[in-house]
């Protein structure tokens, strides 16, 4: 896009990043009870890595997801002999995800998404005000 809407485009790239962060949190919460046998790796927590786009010292280029890193494959061993996946000692491997931490991250991602929406709103208002220059009422 053109440089005319630099603020809107930067905030839009932020929205994409925070949407992906929310996707990752949703994935983590959905898999929080996914048990695996001890012979396999546990579900690994997803972490979204963000990085600024564009050159240093340049404004209006935004942010992008640079990668997804994964949490601990060891998980935690839980004694659950009733589970059909349990080994001979009665243990299964559960993902090492803290639900409270995920909820906190979800609030952060949601608030940041809202902040970017507010930037787009203000930028649009500013551009519309600029169009009023020289207009006789």
């Amino acid at each position, binding site marked *: *896009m*053109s440089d*005319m*809407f630099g603020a*809107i*485009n930067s905030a*839009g790239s932020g*929205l*994409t990043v925070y*949407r992906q962060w929310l996707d990752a949190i949703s994935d983590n919460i959905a898999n929080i009870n996914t048990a695996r046998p001890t012979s396999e790796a546990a579900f690994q927590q997803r972490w979204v890595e963000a990085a600024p786009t564009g050159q240093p010292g340049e404004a209006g280029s935004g942010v992008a997801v640079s990668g997804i890193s994964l949490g601990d494959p060891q998980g935690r061993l839980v004694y659950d002999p009733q589970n059909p996946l349990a080994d001979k000692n009665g243990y299964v491997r559960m993902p090492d995800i803290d639900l409270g931490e995920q909820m906190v991250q979800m609030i952060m991602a949601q608030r940041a998404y809202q902040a970017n*929406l507010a930037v*787009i709103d203000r930028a*649009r208002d500013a*551009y*519309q005000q600029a*169009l009023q220059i*020289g*207009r006789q009422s």
Partner: protein
Amino acid sequence: MSIPAIGGIGAALTSTPPLTGPVGPSDATTTGTDFGKLLGHGLQSVQDAQTHTDQLAVQAATGDLTDVHDYMIASTQSTLMTELTVAVRNKAVEAFNDIMRMPL
């Protein structure tokens, strides 16, 4: 009370070269961009923005849209660009009417 901006305009007016009669758009000595070309360029980018918005609207209707905000941003941008085009067009018509109303 003196307003520095108005003084600045006065300085700019005095430094403007004197008018030397009408100069056609085909004159090779003309520097800067032709208004018609500028307008054509602007209209082309408005057209592009609206095509992009239309594509996203089709994606939203078919369920292929991954980012809702992309569609809303594209729609906002094409609305703003159209408003800007209309504002420029109104100013151009206004200028033309002012010239036509000039008492000779």
